[in-house]
């Protein structure tokens, strides 16, 4: 069954799976890192407005080399451009959009997700680590649909989808859907339901790589 893992989706395919599920007209916030890939795969016939919490709605493509502007960056501090119809605003207004429920979808990474939708993605809780939280706790509380993009397990095979998170929490009962390299999983009031599996992955193998109980629709 180890073959199944290798047949999972790669990073680009995971991002494509998410992009495919983002409706036309959505306002979307992408977390730093793997979530940023999602922007590359929005179908051409859909108009999606990307929000970055440092103060811009309407992120455009990355600037050409040499065209970067130190004062035009996203939350990951990478250079960006602005599309037509963009708007700049200050941080309190930006988080009013987030906390006030105006952003439709955010895509975040995760250390752990529990079966009731708890998320841990800001701290491993190591005593010597410098804690840093950024906007994660605001996003999970305020955004209408919180989507996680993550490898199904850590590099050493430890499940990231767990009965209960052992790492410090970002929020409780906040995750709506998880996109991993192996499956797409809905978090519902009745538990985790597998919506789709990657080609070559079967349910038993998926459950073995998952600490939490999985259900089939």
């Amino acid at each position, binding site marked *: 069954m180890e073959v199944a893992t290798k047949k999972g989706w790669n990073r680009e395919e995971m991002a494509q799976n998410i992009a495919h599920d983002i409706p*036309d007209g959505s*306002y979307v916030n992408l977390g730093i890192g793997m979530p940023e890939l999602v922007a590359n795969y929005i179908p051409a016939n859909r108009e999606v407005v990307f929000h970055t919490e440092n103060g811009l*709605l309407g992120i455009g493509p990355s600037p050409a080399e040499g065209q970067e502007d130190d004062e035009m960056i996203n939350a990951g501090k990478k250079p960006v451009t602005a599309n037509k119809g963009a708007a700049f605003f200050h941080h309190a207004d930006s988080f*009013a959009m987030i906390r006030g429920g105006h952003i439709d979808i955010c895509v975040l990474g995760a250390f752990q997700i529990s079966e009731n939708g708890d998320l841990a993605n800001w701290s491993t809780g190591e005593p010597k680590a410098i804690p840093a939280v950024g906007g994660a706790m605001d996003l999970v509380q*305020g955004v209408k649909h919180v989507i996680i993009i993550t490898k199904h397990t850590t590099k050493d095979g430890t499940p990231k989808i767990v009965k209960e998170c052992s790492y410090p929490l970002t929020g409780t009962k906040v995750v709506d859907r998880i996109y991993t390299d192996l499956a797409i999983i809905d978090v519902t009031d009745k538990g985790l339901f597998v919506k789709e599996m990657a080609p070559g992955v079967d349910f038993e193998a998926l459950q073995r790589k998952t600490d939490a109980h999985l259900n089939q629709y």
Partner: protein
Amino acid sequence: MINKVVQTASEAVADVFDGATVMISGFGEAGSPIELIHALIDHGAKNLTIVSNNTGNGHVGLAALIGNRQVRKMICSFPRTAHSVVFPELYKKGEIELELVPQGTLAERIRSGGAGIPAFYTPTSVNTPLAEGKETKEIDGNLYVLEYGLKADFSLVKCRTADRHGNLLYNKTARNFGPIMCMAAKAAIVQAKEVVDLGMIDPETVVTPGIFVNKVIEIANPLSENQLIKEERRYPWR
């Protein structure tokens, strides 16, 4: 494709339902979305709770909506103004409710509703009748009153310029409650003096980003409430 522009005022307000909470922008005559209000009168939704700084003037706009008995309750800071005649009459007869809120508290409650802040403490109204029955808390030796965020099902807002994403610019002191009412509503419905192509509004000058706006209608030549009152007009027109 995002296109929030609709073609008629009646289409803009079509979803307003009986019992809805509706915020209406404007301070006195400045910034009142009179065409949208008149469309709401034609539409006929009843038992509305209206959040607006005043209660309208003469027999047009908000005053006409109240006069048409569509409003169960007003939440406002200053219900009696020089030209306000409809609300006072109904209020004295006990036929409309009033929740009186200090103007700054009203603005902050609306902004909080839009910003996901369910409640906040304020020094305003401490030790006055308007704080009666409200929770208080001492912070650093001073007393504060707990006030709750206000949300609406719909907001009716007037602005100067809009694009198809719903980015808005306002005109002078007609800005007043518009930006925060767009934030606080599930559906913000905006009448704009002009709808321009996407990209015509400088991203640095956007006052209301489109994320807060749901529908836009162009009303190129809005009626002047002042003028209608001088002419003693009434809506529905007769």
